[in-house]
């Protein structure tokens, strides 16, 4: 006893996980709307999914700005003269601005014929893939953080984005049988991929060095363990995977239940992956 330490704050608080969640859904909804130009079964989603994406993009942008401790200086990061290209936050800024511009362009083509929207749909879809990938790089580039510093994280965030978006789209599908079947496929295979990635991440972290081992212990026990393993992996990834795989998952009730579970899993996984390694780091003298 008689020890003395100073305490440290985490860099990014929980609101950042909510941002990852919201922007992931926004990007995936745009992707599904864009898909409607190429796959007929997604046609009923074109307009509602796009509007959902646009609203969530605005919400996510405001959240990002609000999370800055100098919100008025968000203009600095829009100034190319200040850009420091080694930072993924700059990549994110460019992607988000481009995504916003393409979304407006896409909006102007919605009421026109089939050929008009294909180009903005394609460009927007590519940006929609890049956005969750950049959010993964936001974390992955920090070389000293266990869990974060993994090439799996950007891919995991892409997978989480896709299934979270598909889960929201399930509620916009209004029971259209072909669309619902297509969304079920996305959620089923996407959840499977997410489960494999999360399990891989857990195992490689557990077999890592002292920092990884400590982070593994922290993230798999106590409250954080309940969030990460309980809500994120078991209830939010493996359970919906099971529900979707059995006949119940083909029914509307089962699909809705799986969608809700996927959304709970999506926010829980992002929260625990964001916070776990940071809290452990605050205990470094």
């Amino acid at each position, binding site marked *: 006893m008689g020890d003395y330490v100073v305490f440290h704050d985490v860099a990014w608080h929980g609101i950042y996980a909510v941002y990852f969640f919201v922007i992931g859904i926004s990007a995936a909804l745009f992707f599904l709307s864009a898909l409607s130009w190429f796959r007929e079964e997604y046609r009923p989603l074109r307009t509602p999914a796009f509007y959902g994406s646009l609203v969530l993009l605005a919400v996510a942008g405001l959240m990002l700005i609000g999370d800055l401790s100098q919100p008025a200086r968000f203009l600095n990061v829009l100034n190319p003269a200040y850009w*420091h290209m080694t930072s993924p*936050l700059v990549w994110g800024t460019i992607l988000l601005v481009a995504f916003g511009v393409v979304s407006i362009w896409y909006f102007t083509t919605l009421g026109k014929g089939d050929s008009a929207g294909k180009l903005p749909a394609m460009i927007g879809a590519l940006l929609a893939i890049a956005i969750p990938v950049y959010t993964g790089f936001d974390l992955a580039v920090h070389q000293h953080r266990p869990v974060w510093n993994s090439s799996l994280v950007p891919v995991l965030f892409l997978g989480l984005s896709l299934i979270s978006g598909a889960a929201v789209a399930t509620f916009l599908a209004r029971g259209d049988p072909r669309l619902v079947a297509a969304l079920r496929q996305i959620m089923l295979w996407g959840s499977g991929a997410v489960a494999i990635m999360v399990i891989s991440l857990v195992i490689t972290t557990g077999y890592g060095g002292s920092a990884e081992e400590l982070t593994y212990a922290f993230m798999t026990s106590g409250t954080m363990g309940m969030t990460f393993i309980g809500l994120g992996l078991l209830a939010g990834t493996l359970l919906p995977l099971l529900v979707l795989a059995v006949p119940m998952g083909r029914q509307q009730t089962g699909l809705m239940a799986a969608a809700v579970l996927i959304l709970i899993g999506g926010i829980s996984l992002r929260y625990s992956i964001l916070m776990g390694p940071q809290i452990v780091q605050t205990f470094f003298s």
Partner: protein
Amino acid sequence: MNEELRLSSIETRGVQGKKRYAMVIDTRRCIGCMACQVACKAEYDTPLGVNRTWVPYKVVGTYPNVKKHFLPRLCNHCDDPPCVRACPVDATYKVDDGGFVLQRYERCIGCRACMASCPYNARFMLPSHRTYTKINNVVDKCTFCFHRVTQGLVPACVQTCIGRSRVFGDLNDPNSEVSYLVTRNATQVLRPEQGTKPQVFYIGADRNQTEYGRDLYFRPDVMEEDRAAWSRNLKI
């Protein structure tokens, strides 16, 4: 041979014609008086709850074989600083001649990417409530007392250290005291595996304090109460 292995073009240790300031902390000479922490607070009006430099200590062993270990801490002014590459607006930068890692307060947007990237917890957010100095809501850190060093002085913590535990100087100058100490003593740096090339060198640092996250295993209840109170009162 004593050539430096430089992996990144930003690194300046061992580069001829450039200064590379560094600090050597001889923990055997530290008496834990905290004068360095106080001098730093006075120099910069650092608010309560956050520190540019701090001196954690730990009592290890079982009576009668006990020892109180001090580990003065500050920004390591890394030769390859991860905070510089993490900053989206170039608010954090490294001074090429001298190696100081500094902060442009007027440009910082408060995204805290630099805090996330620092393996040493050396960066902190300045709270919104400060009485005298009106630099608020931006990230701050130790500057190696850039304003003093460029005037030919040593950093405030070095100036005030009564045990001469802290020694400051140009590591690229083979005749400097820091070069002598680093050459003639077994030294350690914090978390060398991160490739940040820290420029704060310790003599006699104890592993109870240098190892990552060791405190997480040993969390005295009384300290957890303090930690909770600190979190409650930290208004950013």
